[in-house]
């Protein structure tokens, strides 16, 4: 076991950016805890400070909202990461509240509507009540679930110890079945003296009540509005996603996304795990882009540990992340056309190329999808012989040709054009307002790409364009994927030529890394948008808080506003163009 290590004296990063404590005297103070940065805002002044941050200082993009349970200090903290869509470093501000029930914090939805789903998540998992939130319901668990699972004093049914490796299993290597520890011999726990036979449970009525809160337009015929549920088992929802809509005829008048059907408790498991144990779990977040997830997590931990990855590893990382982006976008193009009705044929074209990329992943990492390839300070192993040549063949020969071919089939197709152009528009203002990220944001005309706006790794060394499209409709969101694939190919072409020789990791591979206390937010431009990992360390071998800023989850904030007023058939296409992966939406 590692002993707690002292915090490095280097980063008082609250110094970066404007000095909020001078601007808001008495209300904002710098966060002086070891390894921490940012500003602590008084709870009552949060709305005022946030409004000024957005309007006067230009932090118009609220990237991440999450809570941290500081059980030993008996308080809860809500952490906000805001950025400027014009680029540059962000600002972190925090609100603290005493840990009484209920923990109350003002809601920022009126200032940053993108906080809506994230605040609901913090309510669901941490029990932080956001005063003024328009629709504060549970989001990942169901209504009626007992407790708020991410609280540090809440224990799951299979609870054994606060942190891994569990003493019962390591180092002696015993095998203990988790079931044998539970009185029901299953992964379930109930409140004391619970009697299910004499109770009824209602998980749905809160959803339907929320659905019915919409403005009824009094024009023409008085028609009945009907509620339609799509999902969780539906071929167009890309997994176990559910949408509840109210229809007036075929027109959507109210819509609520319902998620959590794949909530796999990444964050709770992540807080029990040691740092390196979380690497394979990140693969399973956005399972179409495991290398990108590895990248974000590795960056966050490296930031905490203040280490620099090896030079060769940096290039390998970039190549792998860009290959991931290509394979993800190919998959999206296939599934979106599926949703538009071109059943499986475009998918076959797309998957053919994706398989070639998966072959490379299998060669370097040993697994097609769950690569688990990045390590703190580098990557797990060097490229095997011949792989670089394979990547070159793909990047210089095959992919550019095949992408052009697929582009020609799709973009000139009369049906695709008439179906997509002008449909499902997300305006630039709305895209920023709802904190959308990635291709969704850029298809609305905002040239915001973390690789350029706040460069990480070695992206500064490569020439590429931040693709944008002006209209923000379905067609733009489809075509921007082609643009981004081309830019990714361009990056790979430059990177494979420059890969230096040398070691692939800057530190020796160890099982238990020593992470000093502090916090870090590592973000990368994943294929679906800004993927962030927020980590709080207290110097122990496992993170105190492990939060994932999942782009496809937050992109769904804009889903409802985009669909309302359109026909029910457009809903499927719009959802397809957002590009959600349920592993990441629900985590």
């Amino acid at each position, binding site marked *: 076991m590692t002993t707690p290590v002292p915090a490095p004296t280097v980063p008082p990063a609250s110094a970066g950016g404007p000095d909020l404590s001078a601007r808001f005297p008495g209300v904002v103070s710098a966060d002086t805890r070891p390894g921490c940065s940012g500003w602590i805002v008084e709870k009552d002044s949060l709305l005022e400070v946030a409004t000024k941050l957005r309007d006067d200082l230009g932090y118009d993009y609220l990237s991440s909202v999450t809570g941290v349970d500081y059980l030993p200090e008996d308080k809860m903290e809500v952490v906000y990461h805001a950025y400027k869509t014009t680029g540059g470093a962000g600002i972190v501000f925090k609100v603290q509240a005493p840990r009484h029930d209920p923990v109350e914090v003002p809601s920022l939805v009126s200032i940053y509507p993108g906080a809506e789903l994230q605040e609901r998540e913090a309510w669901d998992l941490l029990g932080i009540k956001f005063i003024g939130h328009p629709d504060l319901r549970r989001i990942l668990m169901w209504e009626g679930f007992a407790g708020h699972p991410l609280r540090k004093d809440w224990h799951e049914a299979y609870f054994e110890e606060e942190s891994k490796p569990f003493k019962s299993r390591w180092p002696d290597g015993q095998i203990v079945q988790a079931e044998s520890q539970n009185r029901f011999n299953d992964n379930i726990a109930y409140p004391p003296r619970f009697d299910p036979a004499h109770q009824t449970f209602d998980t749905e009525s809160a959803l339907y009540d929320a659905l019915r809160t919409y403005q009824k337009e009094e024009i023409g015929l008085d028609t009945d509005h009907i509620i339609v549920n799509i999902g969780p088992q539906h071929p167009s929802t890309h997994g176990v996603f559910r949408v509840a809509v109210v229809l007036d005829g075929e027109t959507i008048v109210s819509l609520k996304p319902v998620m959590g059907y794949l909530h796999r408790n990444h964050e709770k498991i992540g807080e029990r795990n040691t740092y390196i144990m979380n690497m394979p779990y990140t693969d399973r977040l956005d399972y179409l882009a495991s290398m990108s997830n590895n990248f974000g997590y590795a960056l966050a931990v490296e930031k905490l540990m203040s280490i620099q990855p090896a030079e060769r590893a940096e290039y390998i990382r970039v190549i792998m992340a860009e290959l991931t982006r290509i394979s993800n976008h190919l998959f999206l193009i296939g599934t979106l056309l599926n949703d538009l009705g071109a059943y499986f044929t475009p998918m*076959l074209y797309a998957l053919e190329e994706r398989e070639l990329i998966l072959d490379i992943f299998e060669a370097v990492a040993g697994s097609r*999808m769950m690569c688990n390839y990045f390590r703190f300070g580098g990557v797990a192993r060097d490229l095997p012989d011949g792989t670089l040549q394979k990547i070159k063949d793909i990047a210089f020969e095959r992919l550019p040709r095949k992408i052009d071919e697929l582009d020609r089939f799709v973009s000139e197709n009369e049906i695709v054009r008439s179906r997509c152009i002008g449909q499902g528009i997300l305006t630039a203002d709305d895209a920023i307002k709802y904190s959308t990220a990635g291709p969704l944001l850029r298809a609305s005309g905002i040239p915001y790409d973390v690789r350029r706006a706040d460069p990480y790794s070695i992206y500064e060394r490569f020439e590429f364009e931040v693709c944008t499209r002006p209209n923000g409709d379905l067609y733009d969101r489809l075509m921007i994927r082609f643009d981004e694939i081309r830019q990714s190919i361009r990056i790979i072409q430059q990177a494979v030529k420059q890969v230096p020789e040398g070691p692939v990791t800057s530190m020796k591979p160890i099982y238990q890394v020593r992470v000093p206390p502090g916090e870090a937010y590592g973000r990368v431009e994943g294929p679906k948008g800004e993927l962030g990992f927020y980590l709080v360390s207290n110097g122990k071998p496992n993170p105190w808080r492990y939060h994932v800023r999942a782009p496809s989850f937050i992109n769904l904030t804009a889903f409802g506003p985009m669909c309302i007023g359109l026909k029910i058939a457009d809903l499927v296409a719009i959802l397809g163009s957002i590009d959600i992966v349920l592993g990441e939406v629900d985590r």
Partner: protein
Amino acid sequence: MRRRCTKSYLVQTHFIGKSGVNVDLDNLNSPKYNIPPEMQGQVAITSLDRIYNWGRRSSVWPLMFGLACCAIEMICTAASRYDLARFGMEIMRASPRQSDLMIIAGTVTKKMMPAIVRLYNQMPEPKYVLAMGACASGGGPFKEGYNVVSGVDRYIPVDVYVPGCPPTPQALLNGLMKVQEKIDGESIKKARWYQKGPDQVEIPVPMLGPDLIDPRKVDLITNNGKA
């Protein structure tokens, strides 16, 4: 591989083109019965069970139902490189009423469990369940999670388990071939869904309360809760 069959029937089939890949044509064309020379090559003799199972095994329609990461490998299995169509299984049905096989492709969560049981109940017999991957088989890497079911077989019967996280398409194909083997071994005479009585057993749908509640275990929950 030959199996003992209960009764033999004369089945007249017209083999057209290259159909019938799974039938041993030489074996069928030279049975122990005397076939008049003018009918040889046009009449085949087999058992009803075999021809019936051959038809069923070659058109197993899976439910189009992906839960998590494994679903992506399932899609890859259906795509050109691994080509599920070779097995007559490429027609994934979005409706449980039209499907024969449920591939539980991914992590089964408590919130999803009622929906899965409902889907299973809606599938007509004969139906098969394949648990794809570690999560569906036993909880997998997420077993300790508070919202994760420790294996789908706690609620619905599973025919074939495919290990892996996720299983490669080759592994899934192997699992599907195991389903076919299981079909081969069945007999019309003994099949439950041809017997008297209800043609299928409804599984009580779990409820979402403070935690997932299995209606079959209400007594256990009440008694253990008192203790």
